[in-house]
């Protein structure tokens, strides 16, 4: 009992006569809850600031003039404080509030989605009076009204707790809903003509304590008592939010955010939350397909696998392992990815493997730089963002960084070619000319304050950011592709400059796709073996375990597509990859699919690319198979199966195992657990992350790989190969921008033409049409205003686009969103050019 600091830190209160230790600054309601006393509440939410509106949490707190009714949600504990939660006065006050809440609340529980999981219903049932004393007419509203395409509001049910309005303002930074009117005519409303378009709107539905807010994808679909749930990790993007997956029978109905400290704090983005609609889509591929007479027709697994394996055998015999390539893998679980990496590199003998589609960063950079967690980023002395717009691509990371900026003043320096969702909260937004990020990075890490403009960024702004970085040795860099219209080598160059110039800096890789980090960790990248090991460094270790390995490093996505286009690939596997949509050069992707011998798509839908495949193998997707996934931090967490895959869809690892079997090899595992056990045994970065650890309470929030050295057992086995590190690089050359051109910038938007959005009926309509955003100054020069169309001439082709004046795009640049419905920016980009310059012509 003598550990001084802890005793000094605790606050002692008397709760219902019982001594309780509370944390300093903690609200009474939270301290009581930890001590096992639940004080009823509606407006209080532990992740938001208290408002004290519902008045349900009134308890007796002793003050100078005796006990007084006090809201437990916004009064903090104090040393010696006496709190009584069950006195007659408290009971009467709480009963009174409950009765008041029911005065205007409709009794439509039987048709209310919230019925069965409604705090108001539960409290009324537990403590409420049996009969109503209210004989007057209740307040009536038109019901429901749409706040947006996704969220509906039933104002009659609303109890004005301000959870939704607070969430929108405080957590999401989208204050698009607020209270209008007053007294019992008060209502949550949007501003005229401005719907609630927050990317996070679904959270308001989850935290609504009554059935006032409902979401179109779930509305009237199920009753809560019919639902079963498992906890899993969202793989819509690489943030890896924990969530509850619910189904009614074998039918997915809803996802809910699960609150874990290190990642999502209970929040989800709308794409993650509502994307389950794609999984239950009728458009899923449910049987193996083989192209016969030009048409894809359903066949048995046996026929499909025989066809693939015989084609593979021929290719390997005649053309060698270099004629086979595997693209994609971010949809896969870690186990799936490992199985496919082992199949490709050991059984097929090819290193032409890449989980990324030319829209990410080289694996050795992602895996080799010292890694930061999301918490590290939020608690850094300064955060440098050399990344895409995290609000669009990694939405819940945006929530975390925004909160860190607002709550603790995290200094954020953005190195970006255009304004992002975080710019409002950034201390410095350094808008570089596309291609010139490295020049900005060099200025930031120079030994003296920058005295000259660099990369299009004024010296004064550089100097301010430079000073911020001087103030701390705790820098975290969020690293990704700020624009898909510039070569990744330019970003890598900038990253190397930062890594070398900011000793001790850690990196949080901002690659977007679900389990892309797990896929890279498992070796689905050229020159990489599972566990963040280089091919040569790990050759001996893996040769002993796997047998043969590729002789040399293989091609990355761009190399694979180029080889295919030149007719050098006999077999091209697409593991959920859709290069036609995602590779930033559609011309090359089109030629590649045409030039490859046999294209085998292991996919969940017929995408633009898999439609052109010779064989399509149906894969199970999220919620349909168990396993593990890895987020951007390297956090390994468990996925749960909730429903059965549709039709004959299989988990990807089983497909790999079956193919190996047909090539007379055994991957060596007959069940999923065996795959993970092999990963834990072989992959250096995953040593010690056992199934038991992941299933234990210590692994509930996931486990960041690698485990810290002190927690790892050294078992006297063979020395595992060292993991990758990144060295400094050399400058990349690119052409100067001429005065008549604009340099293209392209980033993704949350609502895009990807599978999740286009296959979810509720999300489908949200993707914006393609519009060209240009600085108003440049538009003026052309004599064009917002809404006018212009002809855009790129080296590849020209097209007509509607323009939008946007001061968030710097002068001399032109911005187009990536992967929008219809023809898009990928048609304009030449993957072999460092940057893409375009000219606009006034129609």
């Amino acid at each position, binding site marked *: 009992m003598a550990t001084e600091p802890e005793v000094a830190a605790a606050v002692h209160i008397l709760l219902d006569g019982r001594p309780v230790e509370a944390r300093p600054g903690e609200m009474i309601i939270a301290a009581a809850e930890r001590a096992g006393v639940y004080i009823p509440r509606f407006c209080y939410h532990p992740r938001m600031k208290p408002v004290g509106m519902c008045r349900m949490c009134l308890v007796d707190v002793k003050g100078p003039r005796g006990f007084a009714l006090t809201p437990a949600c916004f009064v*903090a504990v104090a040393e010696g404080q006496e709190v009584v939660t069950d006195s007659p006065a408290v009971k009467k*006050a709480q009963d*009174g509030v409950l009765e008041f809440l029911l005065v205007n609340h409709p009794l439509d529980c039987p048709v209310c989605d919230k019925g069965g999981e409604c705090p108001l219903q539960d409290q009324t049932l537990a403590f409420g009076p049996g009969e109503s004393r209210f004989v007057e007419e209740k307040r009536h509203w038109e019901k429901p009204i749409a706040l947006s395409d996704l969220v509906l509001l039933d104002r009659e049910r609303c109890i004005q707790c301000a959870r939704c309005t607070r969430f929108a303002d405080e957590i999401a930074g989208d204050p698009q809903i607020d209270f209008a*009117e007053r007294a019992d005519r008060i209502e949550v409303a949007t501003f005229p003509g401005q719907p609630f378009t927050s990317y996070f709107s679904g959270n308001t539905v989850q935290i609504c304590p009554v059935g006032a807010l409902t979401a179109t994808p779930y509305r009237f679909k199920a009753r809560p008592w019919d639902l079963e749930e498992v906890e899993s990790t969202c793989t819509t993007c690489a943030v890896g939010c924990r969530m509850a997956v619910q189904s009614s029978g074998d039918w997915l109905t809803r996802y809910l955010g699960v609150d874990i400290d290190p990642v999502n704090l209970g929040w989800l983005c709308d794409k993650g939350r509502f994307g389950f609609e794609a999984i239950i889509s009728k458009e899923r591929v449910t049987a193996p397909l083989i192209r016969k007479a030009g048409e894809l027709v359903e066949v048995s697994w046996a026929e499909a696998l025989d066809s693939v394996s015989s084609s593979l055998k021929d290719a390997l015999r005649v053309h060698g392992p270099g004629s086979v390539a595997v693209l994609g893998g971010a949809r896969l679980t870690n186990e799936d990815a490992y199985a496919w990496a082992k199949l490709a590199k050991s059984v097929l003998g090819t290193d032409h493997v890449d989980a990324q589609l030319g829209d990410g960063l080289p694996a050795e950079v992602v895996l080799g730089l010292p890694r930061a967690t999301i918490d590290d980023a939020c608690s850094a002395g300064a955060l440098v963002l050399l990344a895409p717009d995290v609000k669009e691509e990694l939405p819940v990371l945006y929530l975390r960084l925004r909160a860190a900026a607002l709550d603790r003043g995290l200094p954020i320096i953005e190195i970006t070619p255009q304004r992002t969702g975080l710019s409002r909260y950034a201390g410095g937004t350094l808008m570089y000319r596309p291609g010139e990020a490295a020049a900005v990075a060099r200025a930031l890490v120079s030994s003296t304050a920058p005295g000259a403009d660099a990369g299009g960024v004024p010296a004064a702004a550089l100097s301010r950011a430079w000073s911020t970085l001087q103030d701390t040795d705790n820098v975290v860099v969020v690293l990704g592709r700020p624009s898909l219209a510039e070569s990744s080598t330019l970003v890598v160059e900038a990253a190397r400059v930062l890594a070398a110039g900011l000793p001790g800096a850690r990196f949080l890789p901002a690659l977007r796709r679900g389990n892309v980090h797990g896929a890279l960790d498992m070796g689905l990248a050229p020159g990489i073996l599972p566990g963040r090991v280089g091919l040569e460094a790990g050759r001996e270790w893996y040769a002993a375990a796997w047998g043969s390995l590729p002789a040399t490093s293989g091609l990355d996505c761009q190399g694979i597509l180029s080889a295919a286009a030149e007719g050098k690939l006999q077999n091209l596997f697409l593991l959920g990859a859709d290069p036609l949509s995602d590779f930033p050069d559609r011309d090359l992707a089109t030629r590649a699919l045409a030039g490859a011998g046999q294209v085998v798509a292991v996919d969940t839908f017929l995408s633009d690319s898999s439609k052109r495949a010779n064989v399509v193998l149906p894969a199970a997707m999220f919620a349909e198979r168990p396993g593990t996934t890895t987020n951007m931090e390297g956090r390994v967490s468990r996925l749960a199966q909730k429903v059965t895959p549709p039709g004959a869809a299989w988990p990807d690892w089983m497909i790999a195992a079956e193919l190996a079997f047909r090539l007379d090899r055994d991957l060596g595992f007959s069940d999923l657990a065996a795959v993970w056990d092999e990963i834990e045994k072989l992959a250096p970065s995953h040593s010690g992350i056992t199934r038991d650890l992941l299933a234990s309470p210590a692994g509930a929030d996931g486990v960041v790989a690698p485990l810290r050295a002190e927690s790892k057992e050294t078992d006297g086995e063979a020395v595992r190969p060292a993991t990758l590190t990144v060295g400094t690089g050399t400058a990349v050359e690119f052409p100067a921008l001429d005065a008549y051109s604009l340099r293209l910038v392209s980033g993704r938007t949350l609502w895009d033409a990807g599978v999740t959005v286009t296959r979810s009926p509720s999300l489908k309509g949200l993707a914006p049409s393609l519009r060209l955003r240009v600085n108003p100054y440049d538009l003026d020069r052309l004599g064009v205003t917002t809404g006018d169309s212009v002809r855009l001439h790129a080296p590849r082709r020209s097209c007509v686009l509607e323009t939008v004046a946007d001061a968030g795009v710097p002068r001399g640049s032109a911005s187009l969103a990536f992967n929008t419905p219809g023809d898009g920016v990928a048609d304009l980009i030449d993957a072999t050019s460092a940057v893409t310059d375009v000219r606009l012509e006034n129609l």
Partner: protein
Amino acid sequence: MAVSDAPRIVTARLDHPDSHTLRRFLATGGYDGLRRALSMGPEAVREEVNKASLLGRGGAGFPAGQKWSMLRKAEPVYLVVNGDESEPATFKDHMLIEGDPHQIIEGTLITAFAIGAAQAFIYIRGEFALGLERMTQAVNEAYEHGAAGRDVFGSGWSMDVVVHPGAGAYICGDETGLLESLEGKRGFPRIKPPFFPAVYGLYQAPTVVNNVETMSNIPWIVLNGGDAFTALGDNRSRGTRVFAVSGHVKRPGNYEVEMVKTTFRDLIYAPVYGAGISGDRALKAFIPGGASSYWFGPDRLDMPLDQDEVGKAGTMLGSGSIVAMDETACMVRAAWRLTKFFHAESCGQCTPCREGGGWLEKIMRRIESGQGREADLELLLDVCDNIAPGLTWPPRQTTICPLGPSIPSPIVSAVRMFRDEFLVHIKEGACPYGH
């Protein structure tokens, strides 16, 4: 009937038709108090005001000097003057704003000087069109005269005064509701803790919020000394106060009287004040301190206008509004009317006020229209009790601001004092007064 010959501290100038002009103001000692304050220094000014025992004139009656001393030690400090007077039958500030804006500005400047404010804001009820015009004009004149702005009267001290119109909500008269409104937000009163204005007020800075009548007293106190002010009145209630007398009196109006030395009877019956009940009918009851106060019967007429004395009797002097109701008044209807007001003006934040106010209004309306049930009387009292537990004075509240516990006052007063009248409504199925 005793009418004291105390000086009129804040309304003296109002006898002149041009009382709102700078010319009249200067001709009657205007801005002398400010000049004196500047020469005294902030500490001495605070001491005089402390000595004066100037109870705030907005309604809560908190000592102004004490309020100034409670500021969190931080920069900047703001001064906000509350001119959002919006309660039915309260119209004293209205008159001061229209009639003597310079006096308010002078008090504001002196206070800003005394508390070391960085800027002063005068928040005026939006419906006071003439008041806003005159206050804005007066502030402009004060700048031209050198009394406000940079280097006031060559003293080296500078102060900006901003006039801000309200947007039509009673709740913005609550000091934290006002601060929200002043910040451009919806007028939701703030939770306390932590948002006590003296700690986290306007823009989270320590802030003094004072009423316009309180400000109007400051120049006189500085010029005449705290002792001169304390010589008037008695106990804790010192100086004079403006009371708005209305209802069934022959001469409704604002009357500045010496505290304690004057009684309710004086205000209602003295020929120079209310001059008695219209038609010389009998007084049935009166509201002693604005719509939120519990009512008094004629038996309390001789109670002195002493804040603490009235408090001990179970109600308050509050906003200084006295409404006389004679024998022709229907008490159910009167209480219903006030309930309607509170219900309409509830900001909607706290459940008991938002829902309770509406419920009570519906019950009261039902009884007045002859649809009441006997059980409604107990229901009324119990619903009121759930808003202000115990129905005590001062009220215990279940809400963020005092609007909630204001709702029960008229209802509980009417039910307790005039239960029979309710029963007649219920039994006869109609209002006996023919409404």
